[in-house]
């Protein structure tokens, strides 16, 4: 797969179809891959990588990259392509400046899950069938890939691309996913239990803004939380209310636009399951307005920016057990 991608990228660079390539660059160890822009065949030969650790979603980089001189090639995994399509729908990416190669993906590994298994000092990781063979300072270990795949991959919603110009590998299908199970579990809690759960999680927030900055749906040029003129600029949470507020506002703001790519939870240095907030909104939207997947269909009107007579009334809150 990686070799086919490299060959095609070099071909497109050589024939002038594109002048840059957005992909993933090899790191110090096997797992610390960095998104990167490649401009020459030499750079691609030396640094380009595509493997089980290329979890980073490249779509958001296209907001700025598509505004630069020339055309850029980007490799998109199925879930990344949903983010891209949603950004297109919001007119945030200049489509004609981007050439998309859709690539297949069977899940991406999470280095933290490897560390949680007590495998530390990781120097290198090799694939061996359905397992990883991990070379570490403290010896060698083998783990089944499924055991260390990211949560978002274990509940993958689609192996099918929402948008692409050409494909490398097989195109898949939308697949059944159990991604709302944990949300249902939270819904079954009493309000106090649920509040307790979220305080336990959100109290760890250090307001590094990684979740916001990585989020393809968070594409405001100046976030209200950064803007001194907004009146609610907020560099650090002063209390628990402000800790909650940042995340709740963010979840509301991306509601109906979040494709559930899971980048927020991937990047959180404090291991907060932020994707659960977004999935709650997605689940509610599905229940209120019918099944809707953001980013899936560029021509479909989004339920929260559209009106139909079948839309639920605000009183739905009470029907679902809210206090009157």
């Amino acid at each position: 797969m990686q070799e086919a991608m490299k060959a095609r990228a070099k071909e497109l660079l050589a024939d002038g179809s594109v002048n840059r390539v957005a992909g993933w660059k090899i790191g110090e160890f096997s797992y610390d891959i960095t998104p990167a822009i490649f401009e020459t065949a030499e750079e691609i030969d030396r640094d380009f990588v595509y493997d089980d650790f290329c979890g980073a979603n490249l779509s958001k980089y296209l907001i700025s990259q598509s505004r630069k001189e020339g055309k850029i090639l980007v490799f998109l995994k199925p879930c990344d392509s949903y983010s891209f399509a949603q950004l297109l729908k919001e007119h945030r990416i200049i489509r004609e400046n981007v050439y998309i190669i859709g690539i297949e993906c069977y899940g991406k590994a999470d280095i933290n899950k490897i560390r949680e298994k007590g495998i530390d000092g990781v120097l290198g990781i090799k694939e061996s069938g359905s397992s990883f063979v991990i070379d570490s300072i403290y010896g060698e270990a083998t783990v089944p890939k499924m055991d260390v795949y990211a949560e978002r991959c274990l509940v993958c919603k689609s192996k099918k691309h929402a948008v692409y110009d050409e494909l490398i590998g097989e195109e898949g299908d939308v697949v059944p996913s159990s991604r709302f199970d944990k949300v249902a579990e939270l819904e079954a809690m009493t309000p106090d239990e649920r509040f307790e759960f979220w305080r336990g999680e959100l109290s760890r927030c250090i307001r590094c803004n990684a979740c916001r900055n990585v989020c393809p749906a968070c594409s405001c040029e100046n976030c209200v939380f950064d803007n001194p003129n907004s009146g609610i600029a907020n560099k650090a949470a002063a209390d628990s209310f402000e800790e909650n507020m940042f995340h709740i506002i963010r979840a509301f703001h991306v509601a109906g636009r979040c494709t559930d790519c899971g980048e927020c939870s991937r990047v959180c240095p404090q291991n907060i399951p932020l994707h659960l907030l977004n999935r709650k909104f997605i689940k509610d939207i599905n229940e209120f307005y019918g099944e809707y997947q953001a980013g899936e269909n560029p021509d479909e009107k989004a339920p929260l920016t559209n009106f139909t007579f079948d839309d639920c009334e605000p009183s739905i809150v009470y029907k679902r057990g809210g206090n009157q």
Partner: protein
Amino acid sequence: MKKMQAANLNDFFRAAAAAETVYLPVDSADGARFMKYEDGVTLSMACNTTRSAKDFFFPQVENLVDFKVDGKKIEVIDGREEVEDFVIFGVRACDLASFEILDRVYLNTPPVDSYYKNRREHGTVITLACGRPQETCFCKVFGIDAADPAGDVTCWMLGDDIYFRANTEKGEKLIAACGSLLTDVDEAPVENAKTAIRAMVDKLPIKDLKLDKISERHLLENFNSSVWKDLYESCIGCGTCTFVCPTCQCFDVREFKTNEGVKRFRCWDSCMYSDFTKMAAGNNRLSQLERFRQRFMHKLVYFPANNDGVYSCVGCGRCLKSCPISMNIVKVAKALGGEANE
């Protein structure tokens, strides 16, 4: 040198906690983090905490002063309170070195930061020699000895025993208070352990990171280097590296209106943020490239130039583990020094 059975560690914490609050690394949902000792709390065996220990002396948010407004009368209320004595157990050599860097900024150069000083004076630091360094550790690059950190007391965990060495008067006092748990012993086992730790550190993959081409002498060359353009491009401009960093020391002073007047506080700031050091005249670093460069130039060039050659990095490796896109000071230093990643 004194010794205690590791099984009695909780008794030690209890004895120390009788006099003052004790904090220690404890396993939690976000990895190891410093928590207050209470019955039932046990020491984490992790190499280090996810967040650094700087929070003890330089918390993320700190109230500075209140202005009480009554008509045309403004009363200034100093919000400082005398901090109670506390003990931090299990500080690693890298984090201890970070305190010395923060001291240079807040304590040793006038004006002294009295908020920082207040906390620093009331803290007793018990360091713990590293037993299981990680691939992300590179403290040796900065001359830090993971095998023998200083602090008020130094501990070594060797099998079933913990060895204690008091280094300061504060440390002596603390050890004396827990005297009945400890017995006098010979230093030989600790010396052997130190040799073993140093041998382990010598095998770490990035212990030889070269910084000789990054310095005040190369200031313009480093500043104008073409590598910044390639490196910064994937940076998402979040503050993760700066907030998990034990030496990042920048803060912002903000105010907000309360019912009675105005509250002034400070909070950590990040040079990665678009409004960092924003002035009336505007922003002095308009692009992410400039902001990204600032962080690394500060740590590797400007800070040493102003501080007897001491780098503002201690090689703890937290940014290597936490950066959302795995860009970090090691990759930057290698690129600036003309080395490729391995």
